[in-house]
């Protein structure tokens, strides 16, 4: 489960579209199994829609244009919705709209002109050779600095020592057990935990097929001829 989350994070940070879809597809059965209903149903629709994306948009996604970044560095791309949260935050702190205006028309002017003001600021910085773009150097990433790597290595070594003290991968037992208090789980709990991915695979596959067929029908017919229908998932 952890590896899937790490794949998903890496896919976004590096802009890897195929890895993004692969990781999301592998996470879906767990949404079904652990009753994350909204993630389960809309995640299924998302996957089916991404399988039917027009070729020119697919090309853009495969080139990494499904995530955005602020500075020209490595491993720093984020989803567009996360970046708009950052934009909202710039408006809500000092220097933005806080303490400046509550009038709706002024607020709209501030928001709608934000991109132009950013462009002017960027050109002004370039004129004075003051730029946010660093050289493409891996050592500029916060997790690659010497101090951070030493801290991570130390923490990892301490964790490995602690896991070794608790006998992880040493005590061969037939049942899942809690490594701290050595409690054994019941057979049903063990089956549920170990088979979480497989148990929901069939329902996920059938739902994906239905949604995919529905999407293909929708795209092949003209939208104006269709009555409004509400699809229940």
């Amino acid at each position, binding site marked *: 489960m952890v590896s899937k989350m790490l794949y998903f*994070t890496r896919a976004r940070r590096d802009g890897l579209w195929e890895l993004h879809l692969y990781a999301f597809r592998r996470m879906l059965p767990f949404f079904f199994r652990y009753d994350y209903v909204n993630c389960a149903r809309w995640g299924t629709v998302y996957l089916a829609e991404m399988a039917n994306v027009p070729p020119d948009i697919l090309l853009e996604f495969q080139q990494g244009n499904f995530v955005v970044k602020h500075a020209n560095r490595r491993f720093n791309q984020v989803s567009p919705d996360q970046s708009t949260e950052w934009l909202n935050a710039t408006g809500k702190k000092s220097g933005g709209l806080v303490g400046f205006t509550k009038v709706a028309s002024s607020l709209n002017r501030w928001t709608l002109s934000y991109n132009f003001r950013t462009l002017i600021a960027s050109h002004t910085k370039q004129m004075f050779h003051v730029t946010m773009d660093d050289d493409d150097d891996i050592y500029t990433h916060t997790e690659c600095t010497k101090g951070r790597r030493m801290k991570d290595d130390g*923490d990892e070594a301490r964790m*490995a020592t602690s896991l070794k003290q608790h006998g992880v991968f040493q005590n061969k037992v037939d049942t899942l057990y809690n490594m701290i208090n050595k409690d054994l789980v019941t057979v049903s709990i063990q089956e549920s935990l170990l088979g979480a991915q497989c148990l929901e695979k069939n329902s996920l596959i059938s739902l994906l097929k239905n949604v995919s067929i529905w999407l293909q029908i929708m795209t092949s017919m003209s939208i104006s001829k269709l009555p409004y229908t509400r699809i229940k998932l």
Partner: protein
Amino acid sequence: MRTHKLTLQALWQLLRPQLNTHLYSVDVELRAELDSLESLSDTESISQMVDTLTSERFHQPILNFVKLLKEEDPNAEF
């Protein structure tokens, strides 16, 4: 996220001796190649190491190792 990443790395630290033993029994040359690359830290050796670890030659033994681990211990499977 950092905790999960470090825990995963710590778990693989514990598994490395078992993986080494498995590789010695399956493909001694591959193990020797990885041993020689491990001691070097220049950029070319790192990219060679990455190429070796992502090759099919390493992929199959590691899949077999994980399969053996799962069969022996459900905690390892979890």
